[in-house]
């Protein structure tokens, strides 16, 4: 762990801050790199933002003027510099496919993705850790081998297909559940009181979360089971039992704490997966999040929106990895107090 080496040098909080600082500094060129790469690739693709407006009756000269107003006629590097300057000063530009400023468009979509991604993360790691640990403790039992098969089955399932099957089930034999199958809020949402609004959104969250989370939950379960098995084989478990502690204390206080350490780093890996993976799920469930926004924006060649969304995605990924590293250091004394 990079953090470990840094902490070895000093100890305590100010090293942590210095480490986080250096990681953030490193992130800046990375972010610029990502956004530049996206800019170049987008402009390489045929077609341009006017594709969305390509209206048979708009005379060619009007289209030309539109292109000029978007600055598409200027050389590529000039467009890039102009965009970078405005981007860095916080002006994300105007989204032509959504007819609204980009910041506003993202402002509406990001919370929805964070909500779905966040809930999924909690469900995934909640289930993953509980089932994984439970299964490891019952190693070689029938439950263990059955669960191993089930987690492998779920882990191999395409998320979008699971989503479709859930919609099929919810609109046929599970119809009596009345689970909403699309969107984030029901129609009269704005009329509902605060509590009903939450339960309304919660209802809409059920199926997408299962579709997005089940596969990852199975993955985390398998990972935690492996980690737990390894910990259960350690010598200090024998010492704990030899002390005469109850089995529950041995498992919770000793085994689980050690097994969950590497799971924290898994968190960093899963962050981009959840937000990236959410795209297909958002399309299937028409969840108004960043994934679907990005999909429509790229198809419509909405350059400002795609660039801003890509930047945000990269920030999420980098923040995720950094968070995982820092969490790992905080949780594992061997790193914190080298």
């Amino acid at each position: 762990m990079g953090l470990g080496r840094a902490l070895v040098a000093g100890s305590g909080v100010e090293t942590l801050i210095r480490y986080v600082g250096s990681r953030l500094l490193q992130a800046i060129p990375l972010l610029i790199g990502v956004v530049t790469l996206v800019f170049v690739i987008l402009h390489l693709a045929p077609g341009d933002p006017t594709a969305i407006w390509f209206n048979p009756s708009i005379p060619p000269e009007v289209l030309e003027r539109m292109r000029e107003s978007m600055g598409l006629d200027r050389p590529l590097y000039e467009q890039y510099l102009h965009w970078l300057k405005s981007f860095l000063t916080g002006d994300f530009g105007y989204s032509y496919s959504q007819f609204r400023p980009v910041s506003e468009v993202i402002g509406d979509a990001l919370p929805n993705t964070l909500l779905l991604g966040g809930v999924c993360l909690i469900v995934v790691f909640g289930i993953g850790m509980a089932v994984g640990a439970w299964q490891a403790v019952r190693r070689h039992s029938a439950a263990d081998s059955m669960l191993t098969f089930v987690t492998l089955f779920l882990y191999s399932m395409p998320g979008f297909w699971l989503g479709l099957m859930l919609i099929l089930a919810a609109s046929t034999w599970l119809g009596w559940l009345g689970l909403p199958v699309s969107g984030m809020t029901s129609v009269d949402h704005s009329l509902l009181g605060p509590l009903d609004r939450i339960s309304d959104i919660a209802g809409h969250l059920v199926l997408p979360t299962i579709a997005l989370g089940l596969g990852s939950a199975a993955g985390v379960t398998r990972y935690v089971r492996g980690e737990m098995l390894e910990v259960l084989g350690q010598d200090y478990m024998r010492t704990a039992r030899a002390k005469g502690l109850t089995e529950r204390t041995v498992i919770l206080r000793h085994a689980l704490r050690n097994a969950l350490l590497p799971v924290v780093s898994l968190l960093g890996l899963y962050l981009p997966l959840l937000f990236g993976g959410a795209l297909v799920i958002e399309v299937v469930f028409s969840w108004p999040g960043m994934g679907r926004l990005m999909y429509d924006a790229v198809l419509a060649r909405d350059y400002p929106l795609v660039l801003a969304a890509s930047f945000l995605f990269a920030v999420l990924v980098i923040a995720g990895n950094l968070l995982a590293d820092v969490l790992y250091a905080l949780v594992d004394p061997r790193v914190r107090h080298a």
Partner: protein
Amino acid sequence: MHEVRSNGGPSARRELDLLFPGLSRALAGRGSGFLLLGAWLSLLALAVYRRPRIAEFISHPTGSGLVALASLVGLLALTWIAGTRAVDPGDPSGAVPASRLRSDRRAAIGIGLLVVLGSAALLAPLLAPFDPDLIDLGAGRLLAPSASHWMGTDELGRDLFSRVLYGARVSLLIGFLAIAIAVTIGTAVGAVAGYAGGWLDALLMRTVDLFLSFPRLVLLITVVALFEPSIPLIVVVLGLTGWMGVSRLVRGQVLSVREREYVQAARAMGYGSGRILRRHVLPNVATPIIVAATLGIGNAILAEAALSYLGLGVQPPTASWGTIIQSGGDRLVDAWWITTFPGLAIVLTVMSFNLVGDGLRDALDPRRGG
């Protein structure tokens, strides 16, 4: 057939194998015997049952037809050779801890499934009951699964079972090729970064971070829009965006192996780093790469299916599992079979890869035991 000696000594049983490979082992109650025999008989039955189609493939050779014929002959030869090999003496089964066995069994099931899936894909032109692209706008449209159409028909009356079989070819092909590219790039980058260290290592790892934080979707859509969407394109794109994990894995392994004495010894003897990398470091890194590759194929197949579902993957008329699912997407409720069966095929295939990957990993690293 000369008379069989009364006590049916081993040599007598061996002759039977010539005609029915694996028979002797089956008689000896060995599982592998039944498997080989079963494979041999079913392949023969297929060849006999599909005589007319084989004749047609020979007279009007088409690409897929020739592949099917070649694989039929190949599989028959393989089974025959395996069947007739001398029955290996009872292997001294040392005290093998139970966990090793279980992981091997999982790997065995995985490999078994893969062999079946692989041969079904290769033999698709012979196995498929109907031509996958044959349209029947009359009575054949949207039939539910039945005896004649095991997986029902789609909205153009095409037989779904045949399309899923042919779809297997596309999906498996893309999975393998994409991972081949990803693993090659990943290993190269990881090895150089791990071995060279210093600024080169930092540079390569920052590039890995760059690719990891890059929205894969933008690259995929742009490339699909830029060039004509086709299988090679999908393979390259999936390969280009899938190598980062492998490179980190390889780098970690190379770092640990590099410190080992025998590598320093090799360096002391003046070997060039290229040779050291190839001869000493990489072979030891091979096992985790194989495991990562096997698990990676599963993910590549899932990625291709998602891409095709979004309309960005394999373009019709070539049918991949993803496109079939997409075509059934809007008929979810009353033509559920169009979406369900290709999905199950994906799950089964990806699971078998994961089974093999898991089995290998646990078998090669017993500490994490099955």
